[in-house]
């Protein structure tokens, strides 16, 4: 999801280096998704491969957190979202790298290395924009305030996850909150930005209840394999 959203910056980055950086990160995220969906397809054992899971599921079958499907917004919004998500991903991958499932542990250990670069990239931009001009400060603060209500969902756990946690296969998402909050607070403060206050937290992604943006995004993301089934090049 987020890899696709970042790929929308291709040719639209504020400077050439950022165009390249955002699409490189998109490539990492799509690569990680490909590996995870491949592992999921093996577990499902129903004849679907990673491509089928990515391109042939409808909106309600997606289980992603809402924060990653939101439109890319302006550059400040993209940076703020990338920062909040990357710090979460860092701790999720780190914990998952000790999974009892060898494939998951290996995928996580690899993704963790990539995510360190993503965290540094977005954190440095958050500081640059937050501690920049009045305009950049205002925009990135607005983005943080807007995004905050989508962060709670990242740390919700459910019965499926808890069953996997018992088998030492998955990570209890709620256990990641303290480390995430610590890191996020630290960088937001260095960026001279204000931590958003307590707000009502949106949820729904895990049960397939998405924002109106996901359907529009999937229409574009899935048009080719749905129009030309089995297309290869």
């Amino acid at each position, binding site marked *: 999801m987020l890899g696709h959203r970042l790929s929308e910056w291709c040719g639209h980055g504020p400077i050439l*280096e950022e165009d390249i950086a955002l699409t*490189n990160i998109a*490539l990492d995220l799509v690569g990680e998704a*490909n590996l995870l969906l491949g592992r999921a397809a093996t577990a499902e054992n129903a004849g679907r491969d990673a491509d089928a899971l990515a391109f042939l599921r409808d909106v309600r079958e997606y289980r992603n957190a809402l924060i990653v499907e939101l439109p890319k917004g302006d550059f400040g919004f993209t940076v703020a979202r990338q920062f909040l998500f990357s710090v979460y991903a860092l701790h999720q991958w780190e914990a998952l790298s000790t999974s009892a499932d060898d494939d998951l542990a290996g995928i996580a250990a690899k993704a963790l290395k990539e995510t360190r670069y993503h*965290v*540094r990239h977005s*954190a440095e931009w958050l500081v640059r924009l937050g501690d920049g001009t009045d305009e950049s400060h205002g925009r990135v603060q607005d983005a943080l305030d807007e995004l905050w209500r989508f962060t709670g969902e990242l740390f919700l756990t459910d019965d499926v996850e808890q069953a996997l946690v018992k088998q030492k296969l998955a990570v209890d998402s709620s256990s990641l909150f303290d480390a995430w909050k610590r890191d996020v607070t630290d960088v937001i403060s260095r960026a001279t930005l204000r931590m958003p206050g307590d707000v009502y937290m949106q949820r729904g992604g895990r049960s397939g209840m998405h924002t109106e943006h996901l359907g529009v995004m999937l229409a574009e993301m899935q048009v080719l394999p749905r129009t030309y089934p089995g297309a290869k090049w």
Partner: protein
Amino acid sequence: MNKESVLAILDTVKDPEVPVLSVVELGIVRDVEFDGDAVTVVLTPTYSGCPAMQTIEDDILAALNAAGIAGASVRTVFTPAWTTDWIPSAAREKLRAYGIAPPGHSGVHSPVQLRRREPVVCPFCGSPNTAERSEFGSTACKALHYCNACTQPFEEFKAI
């Protein structure tokens, strides 16, 4: 046919995006397995989304086939995760001669590290008076730098 002879063949297969390094020097060939006459090359990907991996697999099989080893296969493993620390020093020198600064030690990062390590040395003039432009470059594995001494932009094979 033994592991050494297969590795010697694989050492002729170059990374399509960094053609100065072989797949062996890159450290992505983890093992060679034999089961009777069947050869399996055990490979680990560089970056999760590296678009060159399919080409590398095809090139490996083509090279083995050309050397008379038919019906070989490639098996992908994820553990341990690839690191640039596996690139030997001779291969690092090849990178430098090719105009790409070799990777530093991958090290251990604090969770949110904003400051980078010491400046990267320019592969053209050897000056440490360089500035990082971006940690993301023309491929997943490279970063962009600029040398203030010889006023040349250059790439770095980034440590991971």
